[in-house]
């Protein structure tokens, strides 16, 4: 959806909402993070002050409680007015008719203050069913100190996969020659945020265009085979070797010199690495099979949605705009989570000047590219995510990276399992 007109300022929205709130009204708002609820406390107080008679009742809980809870509320027709929505679930929630199409509420208002590609993530089958608050993208984290020591150039936009392999080999160091490198060139396991950026940057797809079935294309197979070869060649550890270590700490502990994962890991890196080494971020290199049409950046968004159970949709939409626009400051977005409101993302504060990495602008550049989430209904089941993270494609890829299964067998098993789920 192309949205190019001028942005409505927040104060005008709040006034409009104020008019809607002629009498005492309670808006209910549920989200999956108690930390985020604390961050938003002041913004919600502002909203209530600007809308006399309106009270926003906030319920926050961990994700493991959130989804069963809102699902039960959906079943009983008691969804809150506004709810947090994940890219991973938005399709099935929209398909079930639980999310209101915001387009009529948006009307002629311009959304150009937002990252257009992030807004598009909330658009399902032509309906704007959710609105982004922040978005994240996987990036290639690299250890500059290790690159300097190996005499390598830093990754740039023109890096090829072969250059990546050469760097991974050079960065794998077994100084005591005991067969276990103290520093590997790379770290990868079957998690979506680690493998799928390579797949999508190679023009690969797991599912058919309508998302109804798993059909892993050759570009995806080639990308996964490339990653498996990096592990088989000993430039990345087998995942079973790293069991017991928090996977997001492996790069920060200096055990791997490169790592691809979501940009939200920037905060953890900053805390763990401190000044012990220099590090930066780069975009995942474009694959050899990709074309201008098929190569996409992988990204997903945390969004807010107005539910179809809401009886005060104008006010609910005003709250969504209030919490996704300029009200929250850059400090309210933990490192690597990009505010959907462009101006906030471009502040020096969010760009983290004076901190590592010194090239946060790169994430903003990714946001200007065509984005692809790869999510389908039941994604968490077939991909293997959260409490189902040991199964699905995730579990099968770990078998490949652990050297226990061929890639073909693993993909056959994952496809059969995924299609069984999608057909149910």
């Amino acid at each position, binding site marked *: 959806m192309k949205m190019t007109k001028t942005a409505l300022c927040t104060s005008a929205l709040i006034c409009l909402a104020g008019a809607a709130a002629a009498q005492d009204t309670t808006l209910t708002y549920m989200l999956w993070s108690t930390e985020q609820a604390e961050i938003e406390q002041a913004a919600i107080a502002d909203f209530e002050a600007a809308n006399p008679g309106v009270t926003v009742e906030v319920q926050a809980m961990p994700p493991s409680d959130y*989804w069963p809870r809102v699902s039960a509320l959906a079943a009983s027709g008691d969804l809150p007015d506004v709810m947090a929505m994940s890219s991973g679930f938005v399709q*099935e929630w929209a398909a079930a008719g639980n999310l209101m199409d915001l387009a009529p509420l948006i009307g002629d208002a311009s959304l150009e203050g937002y990252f257009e590609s992030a807004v598009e993530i909330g658009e399902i089958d032509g309906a704007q069913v959710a609105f982004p608050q922040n978005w994240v993208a996987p990036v290639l984290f690299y250890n500059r100190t290790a690159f300097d020591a190996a005499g390598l150039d830093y990754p740039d936009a023109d890096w090829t996969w072969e250059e990546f392999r050469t760097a991974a080999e050079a960065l794998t160091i077994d100084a005591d020659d005991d067969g276990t490198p103290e520093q590997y060139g790379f770290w990868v396991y079957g998690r979506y945020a680690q493998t799928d950026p390579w797949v999508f940057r190679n023009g690969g797809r797991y599912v058919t265009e309508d998302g109804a079935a798993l059909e892993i294309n050759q570009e995806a197979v080639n990308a996964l085979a490339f990653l498996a070869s990096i592990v088989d060649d000993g430039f990345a550890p087998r995942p079973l070797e790293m069991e017991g270590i928090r996977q997001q700490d492996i790069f920060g502990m200096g055990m791997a010199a490169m790592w691809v994962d979501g940009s939200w890991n920037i905060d953890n890196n900053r805390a763990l690495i401190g000044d012990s080494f220099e590090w930066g971020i780069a975009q995942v290199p474009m694959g050899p099979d990709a074309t201008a049409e098929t190569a996409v950046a992988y990204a997903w968004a945390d969004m807010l949605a107005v539910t179809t159970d809401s009886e005060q949709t104008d006010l609910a939409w005003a709250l969504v705009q209030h919490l996704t626009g300029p009200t929250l400051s850059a400090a309210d977005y933990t490192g690597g989570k990009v505010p959907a409101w462009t101006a906030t993302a471009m502040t020096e504060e969010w760009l983290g000047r004076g901190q590592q990495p010194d090239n946060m602008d790169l994430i903003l550049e990714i946001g200007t590219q065509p984005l692809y989430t790869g999510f389908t209904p039941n994604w968490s089941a077939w991909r293997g995510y959260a409490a189902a*993270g040991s199964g699905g494609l995730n579990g099968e890829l770990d078998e490949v990276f652990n050297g226990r299964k061929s890639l073909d067998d693993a993909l056959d098993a994952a496809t059969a399992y995924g299609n*069984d789920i999608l057909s149910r």
Partner: protein
Amino acid sequence: MTEIALTRVPDPRGRVPVSDTEPAVPPRRSRWKTWAPALLFLLPAIVGLLVFRLIPIGWAFALSFTSWRIFDDVAWVGLDNYAHILTSPVSREVLGNTLWFTAMYVPGVMIVSVTLAVLLNNALRSSAFFRGAFFLPYITATVAVTLAWRWIFSTRFGLLNHLLGQVDIDRIAWLADPAWALPAVAIVSVWKDAGFYMILLIAGLQTINPGLYEAARVDGAGAFRRFYAITLPLLSRSLFFVLILALVRSTQTFEITYALTNGGPNRASTTLAFYIYQNAFVHFEMGYASALAYVLCFVIGLITLLNFHLRRRWVHE
């Protein structure tokens, strides 16, 4: 001899008791008066039982014949869910994992708990410290202790592999190798639960007449012989009780799996209870999860029936 005058209690239905030995039927009103307070006191429990147990159990049975993603419409699918469970390779793998876990956990926890109980009942009889120490894992928060076990099992930096390395045994990827993940869950489960069963068995041991041991000792029976000829037979009722509890618990293992392996690697440690959780509260396939729950119920029922059938052969009444 004093004569006792018996008074016949009139039956409100007009029937007079024909003999003094026939119990008089209390009038209806007085019977209600007897039951009403009891019912009132029982009412909260009955309502709770109905609302939170019996109605959901019945409802889940009905749901097991439907396809219901929690916020979609309910669709009747007959026996499709059960047919899928029987034919799906994933379900069969999960059922196999459940049986394999039971085969490791039940003998393991019984051997450890009997050993601890006998030790505490004899050699360490007066030691409240050891009794408390062995019981402690049972009352400790599962997630907290499981995090400690994750470190113990860590492939590269784990205590267990460090100790194995001292005797030249290669590192084992306890939690990442499909062959070892389920045994690792069983080890932690046995460690955690053995203290509870130990307490039950100590209670059983303390009912055994010490005179029997004295007599056996006088007859020249050694410790081993006394254990097999006296302790085991006379402890068999407690052992039977522990066996039933352990069998049921083995099919319901969840928390340790969730925190230790998340059912991995590649579902190698996913057992039925964890699979039900995944289907119900991760994928929200309530109909399918309900069918799985009834399969679990059937498995537990079958094992329990089998046990009661075999009981006569080894339980000393």
